[in-house]
């Protein structure tokens, strides 16, 4: 199958190879949570809710008393995927993604400022169309900022792939399942440090570099967008407060 039209250079969904899908971010979507956000990348749509920092609920989970405990759960709605398959809760894929999100967010949260407390991040996928991992991380960043949790930097994530000898930014489900490489990158946007890097399939070394650079560029673009959303929200809250 042609994933990139050789004549026009457009992809199956009409994007250019280095074009991202439409982004949408919104904070405050779950009224009872301390912080919450909705994040959309094209058809991929996730909700993140943050509860905390609050007293550690289960003392046995406390690792040390100098830092906050960060927990994360990733869940997919039954209707989120194109074909319905009933998966048991806590399957391996969800457990792995929960872990990835937790570690990525932990790298940015200033946990030492909130000893004796725990922060729960819950991400719920409403629609999956490739790049759920990235969308979840972006949503979690927004939700954490909305909850007023101190962070070193904005963490954002984006994926890129390599199909039909073209590096492609932000793969959708069709491109993701095409069998080519899928590189997911998460960065601390301002410090320019990579906190998450995953790839499946194989790539030549020099191609990998271009693909990863492309994903990093995507992360930066998302970071710019997320900061716009947050700044707009902060300004509005301050103005309404009076």
């Amino acid at each position, binding site marked *: 199958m042609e994933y990139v039209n050789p004549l026009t250079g457009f992809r199956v969904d009409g994007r250019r190879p280095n074009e991202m899908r439409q982004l949408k971010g919104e904070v405050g979507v*779950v009224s009872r949570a301390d912080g919450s956000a909705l994040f959309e990348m094209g058809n991929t749509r996730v909700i993140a*809710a943050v509860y905390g920092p609050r007293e550690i609920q289960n003392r046995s989970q406390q690792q040390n008393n100098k830092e906050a405990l960060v927990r994360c759960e990733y*869940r997919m*709605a039954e*209707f989120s995927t*194109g074909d319905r398959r009933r998966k048991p*809760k806590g399957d391996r894929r969800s457990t792995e993604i929960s872990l990835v999100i937790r570690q990525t967010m932990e790298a940015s949260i200033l946990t030492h400022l909130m000893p004796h407390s725990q922060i729960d991040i*819950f991400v*719920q996928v409403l*629609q999956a169309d490739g790049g759920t991992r990235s969308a979840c991380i972006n949503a979690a960043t927004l939700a954490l900022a909305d909850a007023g949790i101190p962070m070193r930097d904005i963490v954002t994530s984006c994926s890129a792939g390599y199909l039909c000898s073209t590096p492609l930014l932000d793969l959708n489900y069709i491109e993701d399942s095409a069998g080519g490489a899928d590189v997911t990158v998460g960065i601390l946007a301002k410090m320019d440090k990579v906190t998450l890097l995953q790839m499946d399939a194989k790539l030549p070394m020099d191609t990998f570099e271009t693909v990863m650079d492309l994903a990093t560029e995507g992360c930066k673009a998302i970071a710019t967008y997320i900061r716009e959303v947050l700044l707009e929200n902060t300004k509005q809250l301050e103005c309404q407060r009076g």
Partner: protein
Amino acid sequence: MVGLSEGEKHFICGGIAQDLRADGRTRLQFRALTVETGIIPQANGSARVRMGATEVIASVKAELGKPTILHPDKGKVSIYVDCSPTAAPMFEGRGSEELSAELSVALQRCLLGGKSGAGAAIDLSSLIVVEGKACWDLYIDGLVVSSDGNLLDALAAAIKVALSDTGIPKVNVSLNAEMDGEPEVDISDEEFLQFDTSGVPVIITLTKVGKHYIVDATSEEESQMSSAVSVSVNSHGQICGLTKRGGAGLDPSVIFDMISVAKNVSQRFYTLLESEIAAAEAAADE
């Protein structure tokens, strides 16, 4: 779970006895209701319903399947509900399983009309494509995104709206290929058939607190309930299903009274829901 002090409990019970609840509602008033349709584009139909701080999503997906041998002339419908941990940290991991199962079963009871499927909300024989060979399987999924009481009523309302939003692709069956047992079906991408959703009931839960009962209870009020009766009523005022929850026993005469109240309230809820659906459709058309 919500923890309330003695004083607050007393205040809530007193409010219900005096017909002025904590947010100013009377016993039989609903919270503000908002409805959105088509929020899950990948599904055949979907809806979001908000009642106060309660928010639920329902989606309907249709897939081609085979009818069961027992009922070769009927399609299949399944209902499954999940409570997202975004709604409350207590739903994380396996914490939501019990509640999800309770809600799923209550909805199945009210909407699917028993084992035979007779009296179901959706006419199951309308889902048949080729008798005994192919039919539509409807998968109805509910998701609780934010929880502040009265989840069952909200889910049932969301499912009703999602079904009215659902379009099933038109199917052409080529008869000549039917010789080798498997019919060849051609699913149209352009033509969709709408459902007749007039028979889909709504659920009205009456929560009994003290001597009185209320509709659309918040989670604080639910924590004070002695028992609750969920009645599903269709637009003709017929009762399609019933569930009693909660520990305390009820006098049969009270139950009959509650059912008749639920029936009256449901007609008000219908008009409320219909106007919200119309508003949502108008918003979607814009």
